[in-house]
């Protein structure tokens, strides 16, 4: 084992290399490019076995990735934001093929307005396509979860593609100390990919993804995929526990931080959860019983684990870095559905922040904890968008400046 300072992107690339991927169909997009550049460099120099090809779009990239996985090689690829959306048709398609491979998504806000900076609306748009979703909070978690993701994807109980998600900029470009496992030890954890029921060979004619007529066969395939996705909870927990035995870092479907005896809990995903951990420590130091519950998997949704972690709490602050227009936070909605009807369910407060790279300040987390502690049982308040008067003034100032500039250009004499 060696330690290195790695960005989140570099950790993805190292993780894919440790997983001994055979094939990397690629297409560049900010902030994911560093991943594919690193893999391209290693393959070109011979440091890593494998084949590299740049496709002409993410749509084509996902098609090639799924087709290669269905033919029997271990595939890795990566994208972000608009790229994930451009590939959306193929996300559904290759998941329907039950092609097991891993896609890293480096989360970034969606157009329009166009932005390069992160939030979670891209990855949540892929919520229902059949890919399982692992959400990472640190660079170490990113690296470790690449081989784990292959174990889950390739498990006969699952056989579905997996997305490993990390936050753009906050994680993709932040260097953190990362422990690198020895390749031979990862090999023992992750054996070579054995395509069984799906592969194309001269001696073994196979038809994949043929049409169905009528809802009967269609529903059969959809239910099969649903049941396989649900198996992902158990398989992830097993793989994460085995990783823990081998490397000392256990991964479960939830990451619980000082939540067991907490009265108030934050629920959030991704790298901002590390900020919430700092807020928890500060609040604990001030004598407040606060904790954090962070789902690592969003699909399959660890509903039962969340019930166990949250029932009996006084208040829960759900922090969404996404916005479903006309609804609110997606994670909040999912939690409501998981806790619905339970006698001792906590009140859920919804906060929406961190959109398009906006930070969430410690003071805001403290305020959320205060509101959660003060919340009356019964009626839940509407979702709150984290946005300050100062931020609004800043936008108004820009608008005024642009307006004045336009008037000056239209009437140079004034």
């Amino acid at each position, binding site marked *: 084992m060696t330690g290195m300072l790695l960005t989140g992107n570099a950790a993805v690339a190292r993780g894919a290399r440790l997983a001994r991927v055979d094939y990397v169909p690629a297409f560049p997009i900010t902030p994911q490019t560093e991943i594919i550049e690193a893999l391209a460099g290693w393959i070109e120099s011979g440091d890593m076995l494998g084949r590299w090809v740049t496709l002409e779009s993410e749509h084509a990239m996902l098609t090639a990735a799924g087709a290669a996985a269905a033919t029997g090689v271990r595939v890795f690829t990566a994208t972000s934001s608009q790229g994930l959306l451009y590939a959306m048709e193929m996300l559904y398609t290759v998941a329907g093929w039950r092609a097991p491979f891993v896609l890293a998504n480096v989360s970034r806000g969606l157009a329009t307005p166009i932005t390069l900076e992160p939030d979670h609306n891209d990855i949540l748009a892929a919520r229902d396509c059949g890919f399982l979703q692992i959400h990472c909070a640190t660079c170490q978690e990113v690296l470790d979860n690449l081989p784990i993701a292959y174990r889950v994807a390739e498990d006969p109980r699952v056989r579905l593609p997996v997305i490993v998600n990390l936050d753009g900029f906050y994680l993709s470009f932040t260097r953190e100390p990362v422990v690198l496992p020895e390749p031979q030890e990862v090999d023992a954890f992750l054996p070579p990919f054995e395509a069984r029921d799906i592969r194309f060979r001269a001696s073994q004619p*196979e*038809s994949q993804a043929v049409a169905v007529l009528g809802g009967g066969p269609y529903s059969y395939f959809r239910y099969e995929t649903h049941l396989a996705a649900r198996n992902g909870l158990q398989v992830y927990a097993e793989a994460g526990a085995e990783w823990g035995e081998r490397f000392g870092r256990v991964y479960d479907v939830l990451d619980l931080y000082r939540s067991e005896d907490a009265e108030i809990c934050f629920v959030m995903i991704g790298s901002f959860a590390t900020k919430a951990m700092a807020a928890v420590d500060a609040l604990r130091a001030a004598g407040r019983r606060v904790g954090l519950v962070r789902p690592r998997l969003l699909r399959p949704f660890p509903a039962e684990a969340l019930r166990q972690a949250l029932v009996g709490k006084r208040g829960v602050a759900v922090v969404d870095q996404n916005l479903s227009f006309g609804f609110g936070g997606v994670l909040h909605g999912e939690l409501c559905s998981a806790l619905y009807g339970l006698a001792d369910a906590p009140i859920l407060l919804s906060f929406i922040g961190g959109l398009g790279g906006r930070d969430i300040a410690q003071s805001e987390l403290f305020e959320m904890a205060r509101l959660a502690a003060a919340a009356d049982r019964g009626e839940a308040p509407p979702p709150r968008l984290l946005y300050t008067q100062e931020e609004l003034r800043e936008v108004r100032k820009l608008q005024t400046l642009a307006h004045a500039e336009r008037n000056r250009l239209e009437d140079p004499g004034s």
Partner: protein
Amino acid sequence: MSETRFHSVKDLPSARLLGTGTPMCAGCGGLQALHQIYNLLGGRSVFVNAAGCMTLLSVYPFTPFRGSWLYTAMASAPAGAQGVRDALDILIAQGRMPPEEDLQVVALTGDGSAYGMGLSATSGAIERELDFLYIVYDNEGYGNTGQQTSPATPHGARTATCRGPGGFAGEKKDLFAIWCAHKPAYAATLVGAEPLDLARKVETALSIKGPRLLLALAPCPTGWDFDPRHTVEIGKLAVKTGLWPLKEYREGRVVHTKPPMRRVPVERYLETQGRFRHLFEPTRRDDRIAEIQARVDAYWEAVAP
């Protein structure tokens, strides 16, 4: 083509590798061409299919193919072919699959995908020199959805989205020329009604590696509005009138394989199909017919040495 094993129709294979009982329309010119191609190609192949009429060849749990099949999506069959080809190469190179298990990788699309939505993926695959065969059944419209105008619809044809008295005002996109501009390993136009010419081209294509186009005109009884028994006759007329030039591209040169020596007037072809009926009824439009004839004449004048 002196080395061909196909000298007369008696030399053509009668293997009938493609199974029967598919839901294609009676008289489908696309299925006719595919049938002939498949007899030569054989079952050591994997079809990567784009959305179109032929998507319904394989309906769960049945398939008419002896070999393999993968449905992708309308825009990206060539990218699917890329993934399969690369994976087979990797498996053979790593010794995980014996070379005798290798497959011919085939993209199968209609004109809507080939000329339109899938063109970006096609261009990318040719540019990457992908070793694959690309079969297009060109029925000159979005046939699977009721023959709306596609990028392959010819000038003057009526379609479900172009019902006016003049028919389609635009021009058929020249996919063969687009392929040639990419300098592929091989490109050919063909039609099921000329099986000998078709067989020689498939034979040539199978002897070459790299991106290879087989662009088959597919007379479509339902879309073009003619009796299914006339598919062969209409296919032959398309060649005899010069409207569908049979040609191939190899090593930078285009050769016409069956140039009509004395071209039949285009109206003989146009009058066989309901999609051109407005050129003859209620009043005969000699000006429009002459216009179409002039386009064909101009093409062949440019071709003549």
